[in-house]
């Protein structure tokens, strides 16, 4: 397996030689990220551009323009119409946080991203499975194994512990 990249922006960082062109391209891709997200959601919903235009009560070229538009050209009203047509609800959230120079100023989350986040969180939660450990004594000469419970008949001689394993390890 070779070097892997999570996004086209990551890929551009590594494959474009000309630094000026690289920055220009990254800027362009970030500018179009919201439009591309809209396109991705429509595809996943199995809706054609023509059907989308019908649902949004506009013409097909408007849908096409929206799916290629930069951030400055997308209006909140467009987003409302688009999400409504997909049967979704538009949610805008303002968050506090340090503005990092390198990172984009916004995040786009789709219902699919939320699903992924939830499934990741569930995966990380340890699943507690009680394990009963019983210790035997072992006689090398006779090669006999004796259950400590049977030999001593004392509960204190039986070592029992409950271990918690995470679901992943199992």
């Amino acid at each position: 397996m070779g070097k892997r990249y999570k996004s086209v922006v990551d890929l551009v960082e590594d494959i474009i030689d000309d630094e000026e062109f690289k920055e220009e391209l990254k800027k362009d891709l970030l500018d179009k990220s919201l439009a591309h997200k809209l396109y991705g959601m429509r595809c996943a919903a199995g809706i054609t551009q023509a059907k989308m235009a019908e649902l949004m009560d506009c013409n097909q070229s408007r849908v096409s323009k929206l799916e290629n538009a930069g951030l400055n050209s997308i209006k909140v009203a467009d987003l409302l119409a688009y999400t409504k047509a997909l049967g979704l609800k538009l949610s805008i959230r303002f968050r506090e946080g340090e503005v990092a120079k390198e990172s984009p100023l916004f995040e786009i989350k789709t219902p699919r991203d939320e699903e992924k986040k939830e499934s990741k969180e569930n995966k990380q939660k340890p699943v507690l499975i009680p394990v009963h450990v019983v210790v035997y004594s072992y006689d090398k000469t006779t090669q006999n194994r004796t259950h400590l419970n049977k030999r001593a008949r004392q509960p204190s001689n039986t070592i029992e512990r409950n271990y918690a394993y995470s679901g992943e390890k199992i």
Partner: protein
Amino acid sequence: MSEWEFDRESDLFKRRFKKYQKNHKSEITAVLNNLDKYMEAINAGTDPHKVQRGFIHPEPMGIIAIDQKGHAPNLRETRLYIYPEAETRTIYLITIGDKDTQDRRDIPEAKQFVEELLKERENG
């Protein structure tokens, strides 16, 4: 389900892309924008072989060619050849070329790449 990722380790891709980007910056911009859209579509849950759009061309052996359409007029016909592998959720970047090289060079090379990949998978 995890996100799809790109793999560009093939020497063929490195070589061809390095050469192509020198004189075709607008075409590269257009093709990579279309690749980004394709990535959004499959990460949103679309079957990688069922993404339908003017810039996507299905080729033999599950290879997909992404072109430059939809960005600027009068760009040179460009094709970026990729292979989406569902099991590993990997998009292999195979090669890039134009209309002139697609039949005689790019598609045969892309097919060879996929053949070798499938052989590797069979042999574990």
